[in-house]
């Protein structure tokens, strides 16, 4: 059974074909080339070529080159000498780098958990029927659409030490004195034990990351939920399952695949995040909020220690590799 429009296309094609192909007995060079290129093992590579060459020049080579310069003391515009693993061992003794590693893990773990939880709530809310549903669904994705540095600038202004609108709201509606977001320390104590010990700048960058990232979770999980057949829920209702059970026994297990992929992409982008920290704190105050990428930038570009900066970036690689490996493993096990 063929669809009618495609039949017409095919007829048109075959007519044109018979008109242009001369009934030559002896194959010309052109005809031989046409025949050669028509083979899958030739044309396949030819079509792949442009993409592959570009990726080799601008991803494959830089990756190896980056690994190499991390083993040198190169600067910007200055070729370095091979110094082995010295950059990597130097970094282990660098207190700012240690803080950077701790920050990166804290930032990634906390925001990932919160984004997954809030994203699930968002998806469950959007999966119901309510007025203006299409508008709401489009609007909640906005933080993820607009340029991150520009929306983060709005947050920087909202966190301003004098004019913070967040603190104005807290003060006027809740009679609560907000912190100086981008410099205060935080030490929540229960008796003598400190429960949470971090800084408001760290919390600020996490808030912006959660604000920006949750829509991605929400919309992806919603798309996953919409592929779950209704009959499953109907059967569960007949069997007397309440909505709590339906969520844990049907929705969540069937979303496992989507959750794995979303977590994979999100963890990579969060661990390697640059823009939010660069705009909000530049890694400050006193280098206390750096992530891998912002510290690599600071060491390599303003301080021109290219080799050392490349080493900071390279420290991300094994972590990313482990994340990718385990996600792909869990996906493969499911299939």
């Amino acid at each position, binding site marked *: 059974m*063929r669809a009618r429009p495609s039949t017409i296309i*095919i007829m048109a*094609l075959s007519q044109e*074909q018979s008109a242009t192909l001369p009934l030559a007995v002896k194959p010309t060079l052109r005809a031989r080339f046409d025949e050669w290129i*028509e083979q899958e093992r030739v*044309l*396949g590579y030819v*079509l*792949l070529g*442009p*993409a*592959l060459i*570009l*990726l080799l*020049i*601008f*991803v*494959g080579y830089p990756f190896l080159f*980056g690994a190499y310069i991390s083993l040198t003391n190169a600067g910007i515009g200055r070729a370095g000498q091979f110094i082995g693993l010295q950059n990597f061992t130097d970094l282990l003794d660098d207190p700012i780098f240690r803080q950077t590693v701790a920050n990166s893990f804290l930032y990634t773990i906390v925001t990932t958990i919160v984004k997954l939880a809030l994203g699930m709530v968002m998806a469950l*809310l959007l999966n119901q029927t*309510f007025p203006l549903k*299409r508008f709401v*669904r*489009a*609007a*909640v*994705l*906005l*933080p993820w*659409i*607009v*340029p991150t*540095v*520009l*929306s983060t*600038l*709005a947050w920087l*202004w*909202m966190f301003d030490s004098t*004019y913070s609108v967040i603190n104005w709201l807290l003060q006027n509606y809740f009679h609560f004195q907000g912190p100086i977001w981008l410099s205060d320390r935080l030490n929540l104590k229960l008796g003598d034990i400190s429960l949470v010990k971090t800084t408001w700048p760290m919390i600020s960058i996490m808030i912006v990351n959660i*604000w920006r990232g949750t829509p*991605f979770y929400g919309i992806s999980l919603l*798309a996953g939920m919409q592929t779950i057949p209704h009959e499953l829920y109907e059967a569960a209702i007949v069997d007397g399952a309440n909505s709590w059970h339906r969520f844990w026994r049907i929705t969540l297990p069937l979303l496992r*695949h989507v959750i794995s*992929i979303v977590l*994979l992409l999100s963890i990579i982008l969060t*661990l*390697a*995040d*640059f823009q939010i920290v*660069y*705009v909000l704190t530049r890694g400050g105050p006193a280098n206390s909020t750096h992530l*891998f*990428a912002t510290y690599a930038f600071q060491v390599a570009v303003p301080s021109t220690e*290219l080799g050392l900066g*490349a080493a900071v970036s390279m420290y*991300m*690689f094994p972590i*990313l590799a482990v994340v*990718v490996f385990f996600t792909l493993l869990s996906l493969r096990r499911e299939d």
Partner: protein
Amino acid sequence: MQASLTQVKPRALASRFIITYIPIALMLAVTLFPFYWMVITSLKTDGELYNLKNNPLVVLQPALIQFQRLLNDTLFPRWITNTLLVSIASTALSLVFSALAGYSLARMRYRGATAIGWAIFITYLVPPTLLFLPLLGVVSALHLQNTLWSLILVYPTFLIPFGTWMLIGYFKSIPRELEESALVDGATRMQAMTRIILPLALPGLLSVGIFSFTLSWNEFIYALVFLSDATIKTIPVGVTSELIRGDSFFWGELMAGALLGSIPVAIIYSFFVEYFVSGLTAGAVKG
């Protein structure tokens, strides 16, 4: 069942408010507040902006002075042109390369096809912040530093892997028979691809195109590192580096810039929400 439903109607409505409408309103408020704040700030004069006695949530005397300053006294118009140029060129380049590669991987069998497919997927997972330093070396070795070409050639590194994978999925969903009958009728592979497969994959191409344009428009770290002249910067880099002079933040101007820099992608997005969402979730839902 019917009777009990009508009986609990007021209560059902109340619980609907509590479990659906109020949380949704709250979610929208938090999501949209920073944008509201951008708009409100950009419409204020400096006198109003920095007066702590005013209610900051409203504009008393709306004015366009911030936009006038931004468009007349800064290089913002140049940055718009630059960003537009880079986004269109890198999107077009990636779209062509991804369509060719995607078709090849979706439809043809040859040695190494599976391995190459996986390699492209892995490059999709390499974050730009892992590569920006060595890429700076590559870009300056090719004498592309401080030119828009550096971005036009480098942005496809994160667009092509995404585009290729998404288009593989689209091409595979098109019945093979359509193409095979064209081949039987004497069409070449390239003809079958350009006249049958690509037109049918138009929604997929549109999705990839819109998504790529947005990613290029929003890109930051490569543009920050590769470009140093104020005249050739893109909007995200120009606004964050040139509009902040020393320690002085001109918030009205900054928010006007942030707003104008966000509006183009927001407009494109609002016209193509469905394509955008299918692009966003293609990887996650289809695997």
